[in-house]
């Protein structure tokens, strides 16, 4: 095995990270800050793990606490990896590694290690280790066995995240993929809501479930950490088996990429709905809007998110509305409607040029004001977002008690349009000043800049919880009697959007050189 070269390649991943920070003024400082922050968070998480372990021993429930902590970390790590791309972005592709004198097994090993030495997985390891240390300090558990169990658990956690990620990528390539993904996400989101009441009604069902869960990696790791002798070794064996299964699954998925059926050449169609929809924006923007609409709607991830947004918004409306025993669909819907308006297009809205790659250059060669390209992109985003609103309102009218109250409908529409304009207005600024080269075809993962993430997550949370805050602070503002109260924020959001558009559009031209360098991967 070429261990020297494997070591060099793993080191190269950090050299590349470092090189990125060198290319921009101030990034070095940011890098250090990031890592200092990381160490602090790591220390905090490690201490948290130790605390949990110590508390568990004090309560005399070390087994249960260890299982709960490890399961939540395990599931959380997979979720964050899939949703936000933590720990996966820096992995070299098989094609990139093929240029080096490595055999297939070594290439797989390199990618595995490069992925797992990511700071994200280090944090996961710290919490797991913290738990082991906490239990060791307060009881007579074996730190050696705990360490082996934790390392195996981490490896299996990474391997399962990788295998699931690859499977999702593969699924997204298929025609039905986005719909299946949607159903899976919905099922996972709803499972705890459905399972908990069912278990409360049938507590006897818990025992066989827990017995079955013993053979999952986190439960097995908990057994290995908190037990001794044969029970501990059995736990380690279970994790090792899962690790082999996950690695084999990942290797199989790599070896058998999805073979797209060769599409038949078809007659060229000229009169597409994109152009017809774009034409609504007049001759100055029609062609550009049509192009952006085609660009958005051809994206698999956009499609999945767009169609997911309605059931998800309905679910959020129901959950928020029924928090703390309330039954306020309207309150939940007020928060969920803005999310419905921008969820589908959100990734593009905050990074309009990030997914066009070399195509960004084209905007400056065309005989048009480059600002028109940003305007058209924003109009396309608005148009698609607005397209979901009637559906959201129809669902509310059909499902919610008093859903047909026209004052509520006005307030919901107002809330949605306010959110839509506010989010798109902010998106203009992050497109200009927080752009990032993204991967158009990736099905999962987070490729947005810090600014893009702050706007996206901030608007999602703000949109969802503002009505609840208002209910506490100024309940009159969200009462249907005062339906007109939604109009001033709506006017303010629209003003903000159009001011942003008018200020931002000329900046596309001024900022084209740094944006071009960034989007073409030269800075």
């Amino acid at each position: 095995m070429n261990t020297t070269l494997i070591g060099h390649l793993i080191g190269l991943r950090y050299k590349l990270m470092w090189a990125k920070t060198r290319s921009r003024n101030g990034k070095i400082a940011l890098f250090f800050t990031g890592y200092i922050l990381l160490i602090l968070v790591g220390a905090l998480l490690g201490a948290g793990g130790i605390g949990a372990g110590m508390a568990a021993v004090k309560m005399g429930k070390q087994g249960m606490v260890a299982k709960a902590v490890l399961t939540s970390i395990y599931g959380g790590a997979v979720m964050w990896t899939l949703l936000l791309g933590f720990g996966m972005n820096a992995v070299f592709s098989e094609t990139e590694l093929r240029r080096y004198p490595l055999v297939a097994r070594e290439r797989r090993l390199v990618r595995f290690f490069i992925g797992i030495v990511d700071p994200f997985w280090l944090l996961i390891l710290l919490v797991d280790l913290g738990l082991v240390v906490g239990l060791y300090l307060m009881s007579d558990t074996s730190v050696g066995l705990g360490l082996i169990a934790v390392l195996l658990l981490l490896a299996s956690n990474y391997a399962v995240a990788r295998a699931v990620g690859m499977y999702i990528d593969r699924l997204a390539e298929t025609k039905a993929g986005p719909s299946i993904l949607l159903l899976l996400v919905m099922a996972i989101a709803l499972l705890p809501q459905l399972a908990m009441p069912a278990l409360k009604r049938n507590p006897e069902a818990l025992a066989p479930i827990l017995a079955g869960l013993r053979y999952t990696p986190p439960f097995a790791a908990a057994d290995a950490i908190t037990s001794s002798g044969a029970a501990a070794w059995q736990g380690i064996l279970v994790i090792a088996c899962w690790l082999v299964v996950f690695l084999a699954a990942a290797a199989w998925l790599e070896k058998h990429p999805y073979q797209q059926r060769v599409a038949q050449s078809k007659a060229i169609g000229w009169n597409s709905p994109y152009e017809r929809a774009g034409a609504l924006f007049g001759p100055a923007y029609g062609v550009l809007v049509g192009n952006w609409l085609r660009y958005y709607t051809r994206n698999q991830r956009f499609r999945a998110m767009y169609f997911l947004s309605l059931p998800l918004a309905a679910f959020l409306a129901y959950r928020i509305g029924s928090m703390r025993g309330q039954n306020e669909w309207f309150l939940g819907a007020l928060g969920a409607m803005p999310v419905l308006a921008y969820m589908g297009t959100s990734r593009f809205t905050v990074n309009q040029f990030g997914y066009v790659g070399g195509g960004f250059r084209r905007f400056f060669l065309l005989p048009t004001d480059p600002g028109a390209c940003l305007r058209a992109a924003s109009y396309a985003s608005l148009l698609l977002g607005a397209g979901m609103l009637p559906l959201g309102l129809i669902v509310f009218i059909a499902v919610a008690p008093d859903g047909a109250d026209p004052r509520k409908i006005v307030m919901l529409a107002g809330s949605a349009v306010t959110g839509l304009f506010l989010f798109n207005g902010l998106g203009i600024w992050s497109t200009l000043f927080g752009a990032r080269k993204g991967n158009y075809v990736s099905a999962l993962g987070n490729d947005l800049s810090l600014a893009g993430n702050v706007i996206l997550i901030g608007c999602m949370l703000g949109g969802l919880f503002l009505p609840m805050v208002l209910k506490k602070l100024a309940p009159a503002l969200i009462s249907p009697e005062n339906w007109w109260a939604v109009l001033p924020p709506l006017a303010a959001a629209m003003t903000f959007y159009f001011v942003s558009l008018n200020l931002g559009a000329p900046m596309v031209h001024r900022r084209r050189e740094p944006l071009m360098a960034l989007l073409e991967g030269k800075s």
Partner: protein
Amino acid sequence: MNSPTDAIRITKLVKQYGNVTAVDNLSLRVPAGIMYGFLGPNGSGKSTTIGCLTGLLDPTAGEIEILGERFGSEASALKRRMGVMPETLGLFEPLYAHEFLAFVARMYGLDEATTQSRVSELLAALELTDTSKPLSAYSTGMRKRVAFAAAVIHSPEVLFLDEPFESIDPGGVALMKQWLRRFTEHGRTVFITSHVLDTVERLCQQVAVITKPGKLVWEGDITALAGDGVIEYAGQKFDALEPLFLQLTGEKSADLKWL
């Protein structure tokens, strides 16, 4: 006063990136109706110059005139008369070739009927008839053909081509050359960068050679080379472009014993 026969006129063009000078005081005149080769080693500033000439980049100093009008990066009316094939091609990858070409054609103001007929003709001529693949699935050579088609679809008066022939098969190159010759016969101008000196020698009437950092070292007529003629430079006679280019840019030699 600008000569009306100049298609492109560059005066004291400077482009700096921070403290780095990419183009240094470059002045050129490109007569209308010719094919003009713009040559230089890697990193000498060719693409930067084309970037300034086509609106991708703003010059730090200097003036650019195209077709007798002062050119700035926001000169939309003038851009309608120009065709550009940039180095990075500037394609929208998820689109199909016909969608991309139709988009470009419509942006240049072509009506629906003209767009459809030109797109169809270009796709057929450049053998881009596989409508089952988006541009992202095309080979490099096919992508170059699409970018070339996008540069010519609106019949521009001046055509800027940044390394157009690299990666294209001989049949495609022959077709492109044929079109470019006809293009100049109709009084239009082609400004071309290429490292394929044989092709430049056979195609271009005039050539400029720049070296790092974007400094003009030679400019002249090379039509003599297409026949049996020679070019004289610094007391030496050159019967081909390559030795002249190496003389101008400094012939490199490094003897690697292990190679």
